[in-house]
Structure formats: C-alpha cells, structure tokens
C-alpha cells in the first residue's frame, strides 16, 4: 500500500533531479541543498507525500480492523484453523464494532498520554533535569509505558468478547473488556508482558536497521527492502500471538 504512492513519488524525485549528479549529495546526507534547489518541484513532491501517506493511514486503519476481526475469530479454540470462510466471515461481521473500539482506544490513549505526560511536562518545563532526554525518561513516561499494556488488554479483551458474542455493540464490548481485565488483572498483565517486551526489542531492532543501514549497491538496496518486508510480516506474527494470548486468557478465565 505504501509502495502505491511511494513508487510514483520516487519517479517524480528522479524526474526533478534528472541526470544531475547532485544525487551524490543525498548519499552524503546533504539533503537540504537538494531540497532547496528543487524549487517548486519539491513542494509538489512533499504535498503529494503528505496526501498519499494520509490516505495510506486511513486505508490502513480500515484494513487493520477488518483483518483484526478475522484474526480474532481464527484464534478462537472453537474455530477451524486455516478456514478462509471463518476468517473473512469474522472480519466482515465485526468490522464496524472493531473500528469503533479502535477509535475509542486511541482517544483514550491520547487523553491519558496528555494527562500523564503532557501536563507534567508543561508544568515542569523549566525544571526538566539536565538530562537532554529527561522528559522522555521521566517518571510520567515510565508510568505511561506500564499503562500501555493495560490499555491494550482492554482493547483486546473487548474484541475477544465481541467475536464470541452475537451482539455487535462496541460500547458494550468495551465495557465488558474493562470488566474482564479487572476481574483477573495480574494474570492478564503478566501474560501479556512478554509480548510487549518482544515489541520493544522488535522496535529497537527495526529502528536500528533502518537508521544505520547504508547500502552501497543494488543488492544492498534490495536486501534493505526485503528486510523491511520481513519486519512487517514479523510484526503481524507478533500481533497474532498477542491476539491468541488474550483470546486464550478470555476462554480460560471466563
């Protein structure tokens, strides 16, 4: 999906640069000279990038919720694994309520982030320690990091409940999600914690690969592309694992 707009953009940039050798400045990291010399051409590329990426995010959210419905349905013990009709049936029937649950999750996520990190940061702006990244390593951030699995558990319990229920009411599902989590909070939290540790390690690895890789030839570039795809697929596996863990908890305890 990203490639759908990235490839034409890449062509546009190549077209702006033509047969110029200023591309050597890109490899040296002197992007500013390239951008400032591109004139109006770069403005078009930049606005196309913003528009394209926004559409990708929107479509991605829709698809993510569609496939999440299918995955949650597939990891239930009652379902027959590998059956596509089960997958797509669950994906379709749960789509709208999953979408609403997802939106509520993100609204809650941003409100809590503002309250826990944003407000203390604004209040203490002038007394942030000399640590250049003090704001990031501060206690509010640590507290919020511990809160992320809680929010995610509510989201996943809501969706697990939703898939096993005939009712397609997102609010009811969220209410049940909250109720289910706090009935068995610690077993749920510690069951999901390893998944989050894996997430963090994955994120660190992926960011390091992307930032520090400097391929010098065609095969290197291809390898970076393949690695990017592998990382994306890996993330899908980790996410499916998380869905499975939560569904299993749901079925075990409730």
């Amino acid at each position, binding site marked *: 999906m990203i490639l759908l707009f990235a490839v034409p953009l890449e062509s546009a*940039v190549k077209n702006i640069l*033509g047969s110029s050798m200023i591309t050597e400045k890109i490899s040296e990291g002197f992007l500013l000279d390239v*951008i400032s010399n591109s004139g109006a051409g770069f403005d078009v590329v930049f606005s196309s990038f913003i528009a394209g990426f926004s559409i*990708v995010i929107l479509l991605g959210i829709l698809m993510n919720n569609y496939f999440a419905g299918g995955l949650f349905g597939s990891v239930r013990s009652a379902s027959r694994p590998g059956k596509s009709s089960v997958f797509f049936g669950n994906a379709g029937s749960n789509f709208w309520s999953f979408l609403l649950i*997802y939106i509520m999750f993100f609204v809650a996520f941003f409100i809590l982030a503002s309250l826990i990190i944003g407000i203390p940061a604004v209040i203490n702006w002038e007394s942030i320690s000399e640590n*250049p990244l003090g704001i990031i390593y501060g206690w509010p951030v640590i507290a919020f990091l511990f809160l992320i699995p809680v929010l995610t558990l509510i989201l996943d319990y809501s969706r697990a409940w939703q898939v096993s229920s005939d009712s397609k009411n997102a609010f009811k599902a969220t209410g049940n999600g909250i109720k289910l989590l706090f009935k068995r909070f610690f077993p749920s939290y510690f069951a999901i914690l390893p998944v989050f540790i894996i997430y963090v390690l994955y994120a660190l690895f992926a960011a390091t690969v992307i930032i520090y890789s400097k391929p010098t*030839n065609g095969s290197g*570039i291809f390898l970076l592309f393949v690695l990017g795809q592998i990382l994306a697929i890996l993330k899908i596996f980790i*996410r499916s694992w998380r869905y499975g863990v939560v569904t299993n908890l749901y079925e075990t305890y409730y």
Partner: protein
Amino acid sequence: MKHLLFTLILLFLYISDAITQIVVPVPLSARLTGYKIDAVLDPDEKIVKGKMEAFWVNNSSDIVPDIRLHMYLNAFNSNKTTFFKESGGTPGSGRKDFGWIRIRSLKESNGTNLVPSMKFISPDDGNPDDKTVLQVILPKPALPGDTVFIFSEFESKLPSRIIRTGYADDFFFVGQWFPKFGVYESAGMRNRLTGGWNCHQFHANSEFYANHSVYDVTITVPTGFVVGSGGMTLSEKDNGDSTKTVTIRAEDIVDFAWTAWPGYNVYTDRWRNVNIILLCPPEKKGLVQRHFVAVKNALEYLDANVGPYPWPHLTFVDPPVKGLGAGGMEYTTLFTTASVPGVPEYMLSPESVTVHEFGHAYFMGILASNEFEEPWLDEGVNSYWEQRIMDHYYGNGAGAINHPLLKVSDRSTARSDYVTSPSKQAVTNAEYSWNYPHGTYTIMSYRKPAAMLHTLAGIIGEETMNEVFREYYRKWAFKHPSGKDFIEVFNTTVPRLHGQKYGTDLNWFFDQTLYGTGICDYKVINIINRKIGSMEGAASIDDSIEVFKNDTKDDSLYSSVVQLQRDGELMLPVEILVRFDNGEEVTEQWDGKTRVKDLKYTGTHKIEWVKIDPEYKNMMDINYINNSMIIDTDEKPVRILFNKLVSIMMLFLNFLFV
C-alpha cells in the same frame, strides 16, 4: 571660583579614571566617549535609576553645535514608535508592559542645565511619536578637540515583552538602557562628504552603532540576585540593607549591558588568558559544556584566522526560557546565546548561536561597523565565520544537524534561505537596514553576504580570505570601517598576494554580488558523444578531423561536446570537471562571462559526466541540480532514500495498527 575648582577636580578625577588601565594593558581604541554610571535596580517597579557622568571628545575638525543621544528604551513607549510601526507589534497591553527612558536632570560640566535645550528628533522617518533620538543644543558649540561632559540622572523602565532588553518576573536583561552618545563622523569617515552625527532611531530591523568607550559602572540589586555584565567585576559589596553593589569596569567596548536574576548558576572556564563566565539557569546545566566548547572553538578559530581577542574576560548568558527574548544578542564582551532545555546533541543550534554571538566580538565589537546602515558588514561577515567554525569543528556537512538520518551543514541552511527566497533580487546591500523590503532583512544581512563570502573564498582560496581578514583586523580594529573600507582591504591584499590573477581589484566581484541584484546560475545543457570512426585512417588537418569510418574497431574516435550556459546575471569564474569513461578527468576554467560555452574534445573515450563547480564552492549559484550531468544516471541514492522512507513509514504504521 569654588564651583569651577570643584568641577575641574571632578573632571580631573574622571578623566584620570577613564585613562587608567585596569582591564587591558594599553588603550585599544581612541575612547572618544566614556561613561560612569551608578545604577540601582528596583525589581518591583522594573525600573533602573541611574546617575551618569559621560563625555564625548570632538575629534573632528568641525565646530559641533549639539550632541545626540540614543534613547533606545523609548521605542517601547507606545505602538506608534518607529520600532513598533515597522514591526507591526505592540509593546504590551498596558503601561506596566511599556518601556521608556526619562531624563530627570541633564547638566553640562559647568553646571548649565541642559534640559531646556533637549529635543527629540526623528532623523530617519520624521515620526513625531518616536523619541529614540535626543538632540541637545550645547550652550557653546564644541570646538575641534573639545571634550563635552554631561551629568545626568535618568530612569529606565524595562519592557515586559523582551526584545533584546526587558524583564520577565524577576529576570532582568538590561540593554540599551542609558542615554548613549551617537557617533560623530567627520568628513571622509565611512565615505562621508561632510561631518555630522550618525545617530539613527531605533528600528525594528536594525542594530546599533557606537564608539568604543570605557565604562565604570556600579549596579545595586537585591542581595540574592546574580549579576552579569560585559565588564570585569572589581568588587561586590553587601550594603547591609538587603542590597548589594557590584562595581564593574569595561574598556574599549561599544555597548554596556547587564543582567540580574536570582536563578542563575555561574560556571567558569578559561581559554588561554581569557576568563570565561557562563550564566545559565539550572535546567540548562546539561548544555554548559557544549556552550564552553563552542565558545572556545570560536575563540581559537578567530584568533588564528582573524586576530587576537584582546580582553581578558568574556561573559555569556543562556537565558531561562521565560527570558528567551534576550537570547541571541551581542554586546562585545557580553553576549547572550539561546537554547531550550533538552535539545539533543545532534542538533547544534545552541553551539551555532554561541559561536555566532561570540563572533560579534570581532565583527561589530572590535571592527565596529555601522549596523544601522550596513548590517551585512557585521551580520553577514559574522555568519560567514560562524559557518566556517561550525563546519570546521562539528563536521563539514554536519554543522547544523548531525544525525545518522539527516546531516545538514551550517552553511547549507544559510544558503538554502537565500536561494529559496522569492525576494532575493528585490534589493541590493547598499540599502539601510530598515529599508529592506518584503521581509528581506535576514536574507540580505545574513544569508546573501555569507554565501557571497563563501563564493569569494572558492575563487581566491580560504587562506587568502584569512589573510584579507587579518589585514582587515590590523587596519580597522577599534575603528569604524565601512563596506567600502572592507572591500578596499580585499583590493589591496589580494593583488599583493596573487598579482593580477584576479584582476587589478575585486570590485568586479563586489559590484555584482553585493551592490547588484543579479543571481548566479550556471548549468550544463547537454553532453554529446558522437562516434566518428576508427583512429585508423584518421588525420588531423587544420584542427578538423578527416575520417575514414571503420566502426568495427575498438579504438574508435569520439567527438564530444559539453554545452554550458549562464542563466543568471552574475558573471563569476567557475571550474568545470569533465570525466571520460576511462577514468581520465580534465579540469577546465571558465571566466563565466559569456552566455554559453562549449567544451570540445576528440579522443578515444566518451565523456561520462561533467560538473560545474565540482566542489560546490559557488554558494551563490541558486541551482545546484543543473550544475552537473551524467550519461548513465545513478539512481541508487534516490532508491536508498525511498527505501528508508518506506521502511520508516511501515514501522510507523506497524505501531499505529494494534
């Protein structure tokens, strides 16, 4: 008689004080003005009450009927002042926000009351609401060689919206705060035809101009306040009434500013014989070493390439966030830098501000040009040196941002501003600072002149530039050079070093780049490689080639042409690098004067690529993309860039999709 005797004794004491050396071993400047000020800060009313004794020496051959004083703080007295009319802003919502300076008494040395002969004038725009220049008609005109002494009591109310000067709660930055003499310029000085005062109003887009002076200042503040200034602290006395008085001496500087705030931490360091003091709030403790390293880098570089830093002291201030409006300003031996707590190490903005503002100790402080009339001569020249220092010490190509994902050189950011400005041709640098149209003050004062000097360095070489600046320092230190004087140093030094290689003078360069509005754009139009057959049977007759075609041979001949074009008005010499497919490279010189130029080659190898200005020395060229052309385009860098971009987007989406 008693009164006269008392006055004479007072004058003797004052003059002897002024000529006494405390800070530097010998006077560095002519010291045509001097100030002795006792200042008391009222932190509740935000007012500084001052008693001032000051002198001005008529060093010209003119009979001068008046004196002129800058009353800068009056710029903050209403939104009708020239400062706020030009900026479009307002000093605040109420009187408490406003700033002003009022003279309570003004006398001459013989006790004559000068208040009745005071008059506010507006020499630049005739604005009757602007009271930033005070003219005082002298009871007796000052004859050549006369010294005019004035004694004044004044009150300075600081503005709440800090624009260089002002207060925020209990933070005070006190600049442009006392009645200050303009500069009397005699005929011939800075190319003036007749003598006269150079004392401009306070403008939104302008800085300052003043004589090198001696300052003896006492500052009384509440005991808990930390005081910093551009002078050397001689003593600090507790007055026993919850106040303290700091006695300060400064020599041969063009402005005296100070700051007081209970929240400062004081850090010290040393470079050779220079004691360096940094005042900054505790939350910026993490930046202290970065600032010290930056300022010592600048000291080292400018000392080596321009001239010595002559004072044994230097103070700089990184204001708290609430006082950031005071940041990024220079007062010679005092300057303010600017940063926000937590700025990561790969972002070098704190360093670049520190280096830039320190650089003004040279370009404005020692070489005291007129910032009102020729802002490029301090800001532009200083930006050039800032960029050299940043790129030298923090990595060429990474002097502004040095991150694995993004590296930006300090000079690239400045050049980028210039080349992308839609108004880069709107005006020349001959204009006064407040007359730059369409918001071009920054472009014309900082960016374009810096790009111009880098371009010139590309032509005459960096070491020649250094030698020119050393000569500029030798000739003009502690004087008031004009732009023409600056150029004259190039015109004498470059031919002395290189003969006629760059012409009899460099006016051809400055007339185009500084005093012209043209742009520079050289480009490669095309590369043509035409196979003309085998060497076998080829013969050269009068430079033409007669060929018996035999395309099957490996040693075929090629007639190759590189087509170049000058699109801009600027005609600058450029280097052209041509590479053939056997790896051979040929460097050509083009004086850049003709609109088109063809480079022709005949040989057994085709041209692979061509670059105009291969080392990107011509920073005035507004388009680097068209400076080069390659037959087989290398798309790898763009592909790598997009691959990384796609990977980053995927990573972002991965975390968005839960």
